[in-house]
């Protein structure tokens, strides 16, 4: 099913996520959610409002402020018959839970020789621009992507968020799904009423083009799409590709796009150094080397802690103008 079949219904990004959660809670009694202030408060971002009324406090469970504790509890519950969905309010708190995610959840299936499995979803947020400073603004999806055994999902549209969330909940592996908190109530898009899922590991071409490929993740898709519009005005046709999941990664779609366009920029909101853009660029350098007319370029967040002052914060995040300039110079225009 494609987005065009939504019969005109549009949802905000946050609403699409809530709808996916509600549908899966309804479908499978072993699914439950836990996290800080997710029940009556509906999370600090108010994304889950209404879920506790339908599913009760046992399945939309408020926890103590103990991120490692309730993440680990979810790992144990997942190993023994439940399908927990953990809510970590800010992605910046990933440091607190990393042992339970990287050393426990990610490795248990392998260490046990395939005997045990951990079917859980970890939802957390990413994205700067909210003037929340260095400990509430980071995009740390590269941390999770580094660890074998985890799947990592970074949806950019309401349609993708819903379909990928439902697949993540049904997956028998630990899946980390990062939601850009700036998109919850700003990004709206078509979401059909009918049931659908999107498989993990399938990239999506958000815009077709012939001269340059812009590979972008999460909210950076909108930066890339805006840059593509600007490029259009100077006669450069940009293709915008959304990997949608970083692990597993649909390398083929990325490589095929660049084989067609011969130029590529990777755009991601994580820190640039050792970041997601580096991994994506290496995939393209490997897979499309003989088709390239220019070096593969990348653009991530600046390698600085995210500053508070709006004038400084805005400098740290990739923007359409920057992508436009970089693309233009790659195309010798």
């Amino acid at each position, binding site marked *: 099913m494609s987005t065009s079949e939504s019969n005109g219904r549009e949802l905000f990004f946050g609403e699409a996520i809530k709808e996916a959660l509600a549908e899966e809670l309804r479908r499978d009694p072993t699914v439950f959610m836990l996290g800080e202030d997710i029940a009556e408060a509906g999370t600090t971002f108010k994304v889950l409002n209404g879920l506790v009324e339908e599913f009760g406090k046992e399945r939309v469970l408020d926890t*103590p402020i103990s991120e490692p504790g*309730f993440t680990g509890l979810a790992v*144990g519950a997942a190993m023994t018959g439940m399908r927990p969905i953990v809510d970590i309010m800010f992605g910046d708190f990933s440091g607190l839970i990393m042992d339970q995610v990287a050393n426990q959840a990610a490795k248990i299936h392998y260490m*046990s*020789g395939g005997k045990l499995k951990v079917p859980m979803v970890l939802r957390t947020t990413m994205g700067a621009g909210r003037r929340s400073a260095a400990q509430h603004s980071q995009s740390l999806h590269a941390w999770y992507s580094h660890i074998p055994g985890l799947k990592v999902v970074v949806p950019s549209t309401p349609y993708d968020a819903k379909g990928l969330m439902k697949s993540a909940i049904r997956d028998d592996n630990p899946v980390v799904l990062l939601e850009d908190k700036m998109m919850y109530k700003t990004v709206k898009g078509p979401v059909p009423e009918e049931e659908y899922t999107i498989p993990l590991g399938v990239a999506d071409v958000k815009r077709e083009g012939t001269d340059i490929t812009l590979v972008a993740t999460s909210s950076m898709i909108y930066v890339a799409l805006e840059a593509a519009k600007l490029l259009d005005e100077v006669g450069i046709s940009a293709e915008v590709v959304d990997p949608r999941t970083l692990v597993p990664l649909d390398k083929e779609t990325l490589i095929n796009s660049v084989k067609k366009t011969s130029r590529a920029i990777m755009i991601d909101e994580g820190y640039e150094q050792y970041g997601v853009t580096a991994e994506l660029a290496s995939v393209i350098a490997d897979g499309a080397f003989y088709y390239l007319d220019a070096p593969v370029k990348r653009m991530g967040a600046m390698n600085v802690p995210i500053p508070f002052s709006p004038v400084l914060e805005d400098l740290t995040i990739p923007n359409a103008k920057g992508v436009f300039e970089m693309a233009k110079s790659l195309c010798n225009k």
Partner: protein
Amino acid sequence: MTLKSEEKQSMSDIDREQWLHMYEQMFKIRAFEEQVNELYQGAKMPGLAHLYIGEEAIAVGVCEALNRDDYITSTHRGHGHCLAKGASVDKMFCELLGREPGYCHGKGGSMHIADQDTGNLGANAIVGGSSAIATGAAFASKRLGNGRVAVCFFGEGALGQGLVYESMNMAQLWKLPVIYVCENNLYNEYTHHSETTAGVMKARAEAFGLMTVEVDGQNVREVHETARRLVERARNGEGPAFILCNTYRYLGHHVGDISREYYRPKEEEMKWRTERDPLKILSGWLVESGMADAGIFEQIESQVSNEVQSAVEYALSAPFPAPEEVTKHVYV
């Protein structure tokens, strides 16, 4: 809350055969671990192992109070817990030697043995790392209404980890059927607990309102009696408990920790071995109370020793995993 001695359940219903079975289980752990030590010293075992010798009464006393489908989580010093919960010695040796027939196809090794057939959710090489997992298993048991209890084994070193207290807090808030079993063998690796652990150990669990009991970890009867009562209590929905077991690690932190005098005197080790040995305490009591004569223990020991010997021979000749195994089980 503390269990009063008069509340302790009478154990008259436990017969001679059951006590002898516990002796057999404890001896099996000891014979297994002695064999592991030999394998290491003979350079036949890759990596390291952390031996459980001296602490056998805790694993056996607790696991004998559990059903096969009850859960345990274990530690880096976990061979005893796995065996006490019902693991077989041959598959254990195979795992320790990195062989294909091992519990985890040789991919887990000494510190990661898991066996879902006996409710063993895995040994964990992060100190205190399984406390939330065990609590989560108890959470699932309660939600699914399957009546299972989870036991979380850890050493007193784990009392330095915040995760343990986060877990206890949630367990008590939600009345989860989980028993935290703290094996206080006195040493956090090479450091006496008095240098690492402030205040009163038991009081830490009491502060959360957990039912808390301190026992002689060398006396399997005392461990078992306490475990039975607290497991039953948890199964009845009355909430979690903490058992502080005072014990001693006869050998080093791991097999390579040979010269230990810089952190503990030989006399101390000798005193525990001669005066506080869990096997001697149980056999002594059985003989004194007229339930068994000395000959029966030799019989058990020779039978178990043979079993352990043939298991290690089997493991030493078992195949290593095929190279293809390296990429299996990263994902389901």
